[in-house]
């Protein structure tokens, strides 16, 4: 992978993809503020939610929404923040830029693929790092400390799944564009491919909400982290499968308009 193409796409992301990037940055911060205010107004919830907050180690249980929901939905915004990356692929393919690169420079189709995928990963890393930092600061300031379970949630789940979901979303976009036959709304330029990245991060949200409501029985954090850890590992395997399929099918003619 040559860093020249990576730098090109990062620069373009800041210029052309900044609307997505800003959305990825701002949305978790908005929900952080929103959940903090709602949590305070509702006085820390009641019943299962209050018990959950206390068992998580929160002294200020009004932060329960921040701790219970935000670590699970923050990756959704991260994926949204990276959605311009597949758009670059479609745009540059259609206007013949890749054709020039492949015909007249030493760069290969894999260089192009990695430059765009890594751009998505770097954007995802920045957005989730900002979101996680603010979440930790708010919880630290309002709670007088960071509960270890909350920290684990972020480290075990929120950060890795954000990166993996961005990888999956971008790779699926590549794979779907590589299909020989164009299928409307699937591998068309405005297709559904990046949604796969969103689906990956939405599933645990429901699992966590159900578990918090006691559907899965009494919350056992070790069990929850085990489930989340396994889920992250499965998502990683899914990415590797998508990656293998993409690279296998990535013959140069698929980079032509």
């Amino acid at each position, binding site marked *: 992978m040559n860093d*020249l193409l990576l730098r*090109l796409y990062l620069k*373009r992301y800041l*210029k*052309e993809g900044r609307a997505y990037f800003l959305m990825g940055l701002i949305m978790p911060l908005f929900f952080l503020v929103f959940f903090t205010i709602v949590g305070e107004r509702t006085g820390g919830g009641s019943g299962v939610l209050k018990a959950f907050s206390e068992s998580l180690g929160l002294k200020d249980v009004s932060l329960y929404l921040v701790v219970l929901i935000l670590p699970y939905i923050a990756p959704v915004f991260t994926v949204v923040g990276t959605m311009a990356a597949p758009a670059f692929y479609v*745009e*540059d393919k259609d*206007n*013949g*830029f890749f*054709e*020039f*690169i*492949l*015909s*007249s*420079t*030493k*760069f*290969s189709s894999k260089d192009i693929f990695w430059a765009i995928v890594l751009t998505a990963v770097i954007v995802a890393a920045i957005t989730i790092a900002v979101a996680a930092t603010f979440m930790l600061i708010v919880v630290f300031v309002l709670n007088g400390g960071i509960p270890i379970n909350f920290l684990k949630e972020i480290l075990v789940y929120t950060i890795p799944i954000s990166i993996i979901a961005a990888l999956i979303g971008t790779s699926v976009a590549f794979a779907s564009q590589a299909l*020989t036959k164009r299928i409307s709304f699937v591998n068309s330029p405005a297709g559904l491919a990046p949604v796969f990245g969103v689906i990956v991060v939405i599933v645990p949200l429901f699992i966590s909400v159900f578990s918090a409501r006691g559907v899965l029985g009494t919350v056992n954090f070790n069990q929850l982290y085990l489930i989340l850890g396994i889920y992250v590992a499965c998502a990683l395997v899914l990415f590797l499968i998508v990656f293998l399929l993409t690279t296998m099918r990535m*013959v*140069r*003619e698929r*980079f*032509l*308009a």
Partner: protein
Amino acid sequence: MTEIEAAELSSGYYGREVLHGISISITKPGIYIVLGKNGAGKTTFFRTITGILKPYTGTLTIDGIDPYYHPEIREKCVYLSHQAGVPVTLDVSQIIELFAKLMDASEEDKARTVKMLGLQDLLERSYVSLSQGQKKRVSLAKVLLRDRSIYLFDEPTTNLDPTVASDVRKDILNISKDKIVLYSSHNLYEAREIGKQVIIIDNGKLAYNGDIDKIPMGKYVIGIRADDISSVFPEAKLEGRYYILELESPDEVPAVIRKLADSKIKVLEIREMSNPLEDLLR
């Protein structure tokens, strides 16, 4: 000296063969016009030479090396496709800078190219704001940034007005000394204007490879749907709704239009009635 050698070459897209058994050897520098109708396989031929497409059967080598498997040999070539081939959202200066990096071009190379193509006043403009001719010049810049042994131009004057097309042809002629230049066109007259050697591809097969002077040139025939033009062009014959006019080449068309306009004749349509290339391939 660089050589291109194709032996029984077949290639295409997604398993569908477009080129069929082409054998050709290009060993001397010069401009080689690749002629063919739309869809004949000219672009596929170029994409195979530059190693984008993998030959299905036969071989394609540059200096004895297969460009599909050896990316380093592709750095001997530079290819201008009929598309923009640039990230269209950038400014002209950013585009020049980007391609200078991609092509390992120096500051002197950049300055020379900008001057040669007269891009000085366009540097701060965004690509999308440029006219078609200006866009083509920016697109051409990336090809001229570095000295290469093989230049491939795929219909570089398509959609350009005659003046800009002529300028582009001059730029291409300037770089042709000591280089192999492959220039695709579907216009026999344009071919005659810029090259001596011609390679004709018809339905994916090599139809002719040789001197352009040996190709018989017919008349260029246009049809004019208009009020009576016999006062201006007495030689024109009325066939159906069209007055048929035989010209030596398409270059005479603007003069015909001017003459009709000066005579205040209402013209509804002017169309090409026959193309010598099509007659040749019939």
